[in-house]
């Protein structure tokens, strides 16, 4: 069982690097989708032995929303925006990966330093959670495109969710659903905003367009 958890966590870290190094938007969206599914499996596997109906249904719905519904929305937003399907980072991909490696180091150190009263099933859990959040923040800070920033936000959210799984946090179902709903509606609203951003560009002259893309 521990091996399964560890392999999920390694995959989670790899998707983080995928997000940092991919130049294609589609690959980044897929990385986030994989993360969503991985986290759903993780949340179920972690509570083996004390499984409940809600304990399965919640991670399952989370995996469906984060692994399929949101990526579908984002793919649609990408198609409708119909801009260059490249990530266009402010910093180079090499630098992104170096930043990611540094984030991994910091996460391992933090995971080592923090003492939890109930030990998580794997010593990799807390570092992997922090790493995923940090990757999200790096992506938000270093990418120009609105869509990529949404991906960064989702990675940040995934990291926080993984931390919740790591400390075996039992939030009431209503709250879990509320959090999931907030993430879903949040990405939905951001998707609408992206649609408007792309439409807005159609009738602004190119000079302004360049000034805007730089900031959005």
């Amino acid at each position, binding site marked *: 069982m521990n091996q399964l958890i560890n392999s999920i966590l390694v995959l989670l870290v790899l998707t983080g690097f995928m997000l940092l190094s991919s130049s294609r938007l589609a690959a980044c969206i897929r990385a986030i989708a994989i993360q969503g599914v991985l986290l759903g499996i993780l949340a179920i596997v972690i509570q083996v032995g004390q499984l409940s109906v809600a304990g399965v249904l919640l991670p399952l719905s989370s995996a469906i929303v984060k692994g399929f519904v949101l990526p579908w929305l984002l793919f649609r937003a990408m198609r409708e925006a119909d801009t260059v399907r490249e990530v266009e980072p402010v910093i180079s991909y090499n630098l992104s990966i170096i930043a990611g490696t540094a984030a991994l180091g910091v996460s391992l150190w933090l995971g080592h330093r923090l003492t939890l009263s109930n030990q998580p099933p794997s010593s990799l859990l807390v570092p992997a959670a922090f790493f995923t959040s940090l990757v999200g923040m790096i992506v938000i800070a270093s990418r120009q495109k609105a869509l990529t920033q949404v991906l960064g936000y989702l990675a940040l959210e995934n990291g926080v969710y993984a931390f919740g799984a790591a400390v075996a946090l039992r939030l009431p179902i209503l709250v879990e659903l*509320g959090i999931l*709903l907030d993430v879903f509606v949040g990405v939905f*609203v*951001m998707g609408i905003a992206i649609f408007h*951003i792309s439409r*807005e560009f159609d009738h602004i002259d190119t000079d302004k367009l360049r000034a805007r893309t730089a900031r959005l």
Partner: protein
Amino acid sequence: MIALLIILPAGAGIFALFIGSDRLRRILLLSTAITQTALSITAWMVPPAPALGGWLAEDALGRLIETLTSVLFLAASFYAVAYLREERRQTHSDFEEGFLFSNAREASFTACLLFFLAAMTLVAVSQQIALLWVAVEATTLASAPLIYFHRHHRSLEATWKYLLICSVGIALALLGIFFLAVAATNPDGSTIALMVPDLRANAHRLNVPWFRAAFLLLLVGFGTKMGLAPFHTWLPDAHSEAPSVASALLSGALLNCAFLGILRVQEISVAGGIAGFSDKLLLIFGLVSMGVAAAFISGQTDYKRMLAYSSVEHMGILAVGVGLGGAAVFGAVLHVINHSLTKAMLFLVAGNFLAVYRTKNSTEISGALRVLPVSGVLWLVGLFAITGSPPFGPFLSELLILKGALDHGQILVAIVYLVLLAVIMAAMAAPALAMAQGTPGAHISSPPERSLTLTIVPAMLGIAILLMGIYVPPVLTRALREAALVLG
């Protein structure tokens, strides 16, 4: 009864989406606002029973914020109806860049206003920390479309900034809540429920290092939403691009709700006798916010941005007040009310200026006292009030915070606080006075038949600010004292 406070506006919001007639929808907005305010006031006389197993309950602090929110919403909804009637034209020309744009559908604007009210009410009455988080995030999502009412690229950019920055902040707050859950796990594996009363009762059993980390994350997270520097960067854009009625609600009501999120954790700190750390953080962020506001208000020519930075300043004042503890906390809670009333009024008056002068640049406006006599006077009243001049409400609360600083021997804090207040007063007075005085430009004529409501609503708020400076009713004093008690 408590649940009704949330279900009523949420349900009305759903209805508003499907009502085709503008008239009917406006009646719905007004009647919801009136009923909501009536319910909130009834709650003062007949305290409602907790609902959902204690998750929703009104304490003194929550009731104050809830009532303030519904009163401001009532004012805003009357203003909004008059405003929407004037905005009915299909296209508008932008006064900065001259392009044409249209507005969002009135139905979705009204619905979002109502959803926004429901979310803010949920923040105020939520005793479960994670539920409070869900509600704060919901306020972001409900208010984002309000900022994008005028469909053009500047408001879109402001909306995007607001959505992204606040969502990131709120994600950090969620991590903070998980940290709090770790802090609330005892060595033997038993846990304390994430409810404010439970956490307060067992605050001495919390794991202190984890609690401190949780406080820091929650302060950053909710502080982003509240507009504490250096996380305030979304605030000037959003307040300047949103229609004035939405700016008034953002500044007057939403910022308080985010502040309440921080106060809930501070309550736990105080109950556990571990407030030394959180007090220091609040003081630092508060003074930094005031400093940043002073720097950006100086030389600011966009008067809506000036008001937005003034909100950053006042959020800083609130943080300082709570961080000082003792008598200053009473001042801070009182200042929540005074700031909300004053800032809401100023934004509504700014909306009137915008409609007549068609510019956000304060240097292009003069003679407001002649063109818009009532709004001009209210603008001056608001200016004096917000910069802390007697006899208005904010003077009293700012003085109480200063007194608190001196009582605690925090001389340095008191000096910095006073200097920053003076700088901001000077920086705001010059452009604001120039706008009111002088002769209006030749092309400005008194507007034809603008609705009286657009003047009456801010005038009512102006009277309230004056009253708050002269006489704070004993009922309110009692509630304020009770609220301040749990905050140290």
